[in-house]
């Protein structure tokens, strides 16, 4: 009995280690420089982490099924360019579509998200129907999508010029905020990220698709003999992830007020790193939305906080690398069975 409760305590701590690390990190940086604890710091970290969170949530869907998605970053670039190309102010000199009328802002946003969804759908079909391993399938789309994006980006008259001069009613979604008075404010993009995380939480925990996702990643054989249509579930999950990357790309364009075909490059690796640090297993079957949020925030705090206290960017990279490896080494101990 005692042994059991002891085990429970250990498990409890192990499950929440990530949040403890996050708090320790904040405390450590705050001791080095108490100014870190200002509200504006928190707001900036959240704002910078918002699109990363949305991409990481997409990656979490895939990782939990036991897959991996390398195309995320390039999808972000694609949808950033597509949405930005349709949302320039009509007085701007280098318009991507010189004769395009001022569209309602929602149309390009939806087109961007749908483009992402289509890429995800293609990934899903290649993986579930053609049985190509996810690593290879998404490596292929990652390379191919960049090609598609570059052709689009190089069209006349743009010819690979960075897309700028984006409309205010679009960029406000990335850089605008609600003023709460007294120096407090909440960026819209943070609210969007929180809303997306909430929806993902519901999908993970309350829907059949979410539970099937865990079952497929945990034991695909058991899922199959329980009558789950594994292929259809996988395709839907890849499509949802693609849509999330699409949304993230649109928001990246809005946040930075522009886009090039190199947007999002390698974001998939940041997303996977945030997921595994947040307790998502690359072997599949394990992962939570709060864990992913903590994983993203840890990297947000490191990026911002270490710069804040003057740690060189090269040292930051070394620290990040150490955190990724040690987080997973620690995590694996939870599940290692004794032979």
């Amino acid at each position, binding site marked *: 009995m005692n042994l059991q409760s002891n085990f429970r305590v250990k*498990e409890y701590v192990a499950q929440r280690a990530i949040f403890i690390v996050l708090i320790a990190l904040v405390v450590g940086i705050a001791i080095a420089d108490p100014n870190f604890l200002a509200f504006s710091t928190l707001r900036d970290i959240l704002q910078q982490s918002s699109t990363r969170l949305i991409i990481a949530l997409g990656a979490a869907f895939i990782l939990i099924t036991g897959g991996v998605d390398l195309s995320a970053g390039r999808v972000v670039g694609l949808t950033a360019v597509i949405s930005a190309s349709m949302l320039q102010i009509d007085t701007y000199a280098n318009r991507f579509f010189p004769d395009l009328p001022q569209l309602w802002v929602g149309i390009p946003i939806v087109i961007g998200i749908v483009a992402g969804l289509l890429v995800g759908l293609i990934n899903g079909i290649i993986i579930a129907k053609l049985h190509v391993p996810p690593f290879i399938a998404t490596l292929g789309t990652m390379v191919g999508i960049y090609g598609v994006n570059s052709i689009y980006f190089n069209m006349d008259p743009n010819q690979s010029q960075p897309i700028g001069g984006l409309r205010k009613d679009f960029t406000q979604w990335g850089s605008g905020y609600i003023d709460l008075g007294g120096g407090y404010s909440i960026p819209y993009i943070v609210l969007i990220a929180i809303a997306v995380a909430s929806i993902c939480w*519901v999908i993970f925990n*309350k*829907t*059949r698709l979410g*539970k099937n996702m*865990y*079952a497929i990643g*945990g*034991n695909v*054989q*058991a*899922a199959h*003999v*329980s*009558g*789950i249509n594994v292929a259809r579930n996988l395709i839907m999950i890849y499509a949802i992830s693609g849509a999330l990357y699409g949304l993230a790309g649109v928001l990246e364009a809005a946040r930075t007020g522009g886009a090039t075909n190199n947007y999002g490059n390698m974001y998939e690796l940041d997303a996977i790193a945030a997921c595994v640090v947040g307790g998502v297993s690359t072997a599949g*079957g*394990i992962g939570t939305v709060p864990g992913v949020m903590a994983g993203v925030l840890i990297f947000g705090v490191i990026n911002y906080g270490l710069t804040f206290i003057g740690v060189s960017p090269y040292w930051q990279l070394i620290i990040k690398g150490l955190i990724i490896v040690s987080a997973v080494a620690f995590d694996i101990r939870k*599940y290692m069975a*004794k*032979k």
Partner: protein
Amino acid sequence: MTMTEPYVLEMRGISKAFPGVQALSDVTLKVRPGTVHALMGENGAGKSTLMKCLFGIYKPDEGEIVLDGRKAAISSSRDAIASGISMIHQELHPVQHRSVMENIWLGRFPMFWMGPFRLVNEKRMYQDTLDLFRDLDLDIDPKARTGSLSVSKIQSLEIAKAVSFNSKVIVMDEPTSSLTGNEVEQLFTIINRLRMRGVSIIYISHKMEEILRIADEVTIMRDGCLIGTWPSTELTTDLIITRMVGRDLKERFPQRTHTPGAPLLKVEGLCSVNPKSFQDVSFELRRGEILGLGGLVGAQRTELVEALFGMRGLASGKLVMDGRPIRIKSPSDAKRHNIALLTEERRVTGIFPVLSVYENTIIANLGRYRNRLGLLDERKGREEAERNVELLRTKTPSVSTLIRNLSGGNQQKVLLARWLLTEPDILLLDEPTRGIDVGAKFEIYTIIAGLAKEGKSIIMISSEMPELLGMSDRIMVMSEGRVTGIVEGKGATEAEIMRLAAQQRRTEAKGNSHELTIQF
């Protein structure tokens, strides 16, 4: 008298052949409603094949399956479940990281609409699971993580799942093989409760005492044939054993011309780190001796030889080789002490399918084929591989052929060659002839006998009784992780071995030596 069917399930005249083997010939199994029907036979008697036919995993060549008097077409495990047949597998495979209730209702979650969204009805799922468990008097938290449960609880979960499908027939394959005494009692309570409700259980087990206690009827199979069905009240342990083994030993083994020499390896009180695996194992292995290792599924024989090869952890015990104590913590330690292991799962832990015969032969021994530059001397390696192909009479077009293109017997010879090149003093062979056809078996036997004659010591696990009796100088028998006896190979009988293998632990007392040497 009502005209209800006397049998809930009838499998009539089932035959099934695989290339080279008649796995089942004209087997009939009739199960009455609300009874426990034991299915018995040696390893390889065809029990699993018969159950796979029932479950739609194999399609029988001949025969029919009749459920409740109606002919049933079962071509997948889904069909079987829909027809009211469930199976509790020997190795249970739930989704470890999810809750108990999710595992039970996987693929058929109760749903509800919340506005436009269709969500899983957790409350209803929880309540349904509670009701199901209360009904079976199970004490399991529906929200517990499945991976945190004991094997016995996971088994209860699987039984509850079968009940939730309204199964009329539940097949249990070796359900007690990993349970403790107390857990077996709990299982029997559940089985009795199911029997009272009219559910039939097909109970596959080797354990005589269990069978005689729980079964109403017993069907015995041998070599793919039906021997007969009897009420358990008419049977005794001896009668079952006689009917399970009763066959004559043909001249299927090479003449033995060597005599074992001085002791080489002394094993004392070896205990696994896993309390459910082997415990307190002691024996001696002589030079040039073939020590057969017999036992039933779950006897922990594979675990023992894998531990001797450093693949599994040891909690305590001593190994003495040539008078010197040795420690083996990894396969490379074992290799250094000239121990070699031919694993049971040839495809999983033996062959490298996409490498050639040549590469497969020398892979455990690459250090020997270095030239002066430290690079691999391919010519030397090839010559060695070719020499071994000739020596063991391996049938292969050339040593460059991919090993996966060879037959099982020839793959096994390549693996034997691989380990012989390490010049072992002790060869551990785990089911060396599994999945190999009869002709090739004799050749493998000849090679093994030849090695013993050269003075190599051999421990050979075998689940085939004739092989064990025909090849071994001595036979060590294990049951539930304990050595239950070591008998001289010459003069040993199948019944003797079977009795030792089926010996069950009566007490939970520890530290008791269960070793018992029978002299002839």
